[in-house]
């Protein structure tokens, strides 16, 4: 049986008294994210052609996209950050950013009943060239 008067944890505890804290003063001091860390999806409304591949392939069904209304929306709280949409996007409209969004709160719920973490874009109406192509 071990000696009850031995305190194997004591040296480390005493050392911890005089060493720097292992924790950070979050949120004033934040950690540097590593390159290639996956956090938030960024969307570029200028280049998107609303092909809807991202919405179809998203395993969490976090993306809503409509070609007719030229509408693209993402639920950040549903997004699981798997990077599938970024990989399948043919126009490079989607990218993965390394900074994560701050915590969403109920206060973000807008007057129109917008959900926290919901972000949406409305693209410009298709230009004449596109309209011509679709007519032909």
């Amino acid at each position, binding site marked *: *049986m*071990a*000696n*009850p008067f*031995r*305190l*194997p*944890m004591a040296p*480390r*505890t005493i050392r911890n008294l005089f060493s720097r804290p*292992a924790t950070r003063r979050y949120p004033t001091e934040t950690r540097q*994210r*590593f390159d*290639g*860390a*996956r956090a938030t999806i960024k969307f570029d409304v200028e280049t998107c052609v609303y092909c809807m591949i991202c919405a179809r*392939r*998203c*395993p*969490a069904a976090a993306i809503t996209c409509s070609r007719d209304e030229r509408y693209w929306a993402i639920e950040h709280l549903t997004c*699981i*950050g*798997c*990077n*599938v949409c970024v990989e399948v996007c043919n126009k490079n409209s989607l990218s993965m950013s390394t900074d994560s969004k701050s915590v969403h709160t109920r206060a973000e719920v807008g007057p129109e009943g917008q959900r926290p973490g919901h972000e949406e874009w409305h693209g410009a109406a298709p230009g004449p060239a596109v309209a011509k192509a679709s007519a032909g």
Partner: protein
Amino acid sequence: MKRTVIPFGPQHPVLPEPIVLDLILEDEKVVEAIPTIGYIHRGLEAMVERVEYTEMGFVVERICGICSFMHGMGYCLALESIMNVEVPDRARWLRIIWAEISRIQSHLLWLGLGADAFGFENLFMHCWRMREEILDIFEKTTGGRIIHSVNRIGGVKRDISDSELVAIVAKLDELGKAFDKTAKVFASDASIRHRLSGVGVLPMEDARAVDAVGPMARASGVRIDTRLTGQNLYDQLEFEPVLETAGDCLARVVVRMREVRQSIDLVHQMVEKMPKGEGLPIETKVRGMPSGETFTRLEQPRGEVVYYVKANGTKYLERFRARTPTFANVPAMIKLVKGCDLADVPNIILTIDPCISCTER
């Protein structure tokens, strides 16, 4: 004697996950324990019918936050065996390197939780501080701390450069030294011994009879480990499972501590033996739809996991099922809880390393 029923869970201070045990007591002794599960059932098996098989791997990873890498890996291995995909060598080595690192992560997490359960919060924080280093390695190499999403059918998404592999090994060595000091506390602290030694003894015959798996069985002296089958390149490594014979709570702690050291050693061997060089292929393009059925086994931190996949030639799988190690260890847990003191119940339940999210999927 009059019997009392005390519910253990679904919210309990030592166990962050929801499981209910109705403990039937006579005085302070537990005479029967009736488990109830199903609090976090997420319907994964129904989900395969509407998520394409290529994306399902990312959902499967989310079965559990601790062994997430191996869930993704097991799913991909199952699909690869159905579709006869030849995975590049480097990808296979990278997978098992990540798998062993995630084993270290899981055991450190559990050792911390175990320390917390028997009231040693100081030790809990030291274990989790070490785990943080592992999470940094994961974030740097895969992009995610907990959910890595790096496995894909046909290989892996990201490569680790050779210089970074050397850095990882050096970091693990450093971690191993820090871990040895913490392991000494687990091994020699009197209060830990008094709390765990001789508590919840599972003899070898009983462990075989209830089909215990993983560290639970190995702590009782049963030589069972899926890595012994030599699948996934483990035949090229010097590997002998960690065995203890006492079968009590302390033995289960010791097995996991020794497995942390063993995993660090395995990562050393893997980095030495894997093919080196820049630009080696890490992925095979997969074409077509899977058809057929298969099952795959893997050794997760908690024990053997089995994946069953049935595909019917469409982009949606017909059936997917995972039998997780905790599910296999629940009978052993019930057996141990019977006849023990009420005060020992949390410790015994925690030493099987229960993962209820895995069990209920």
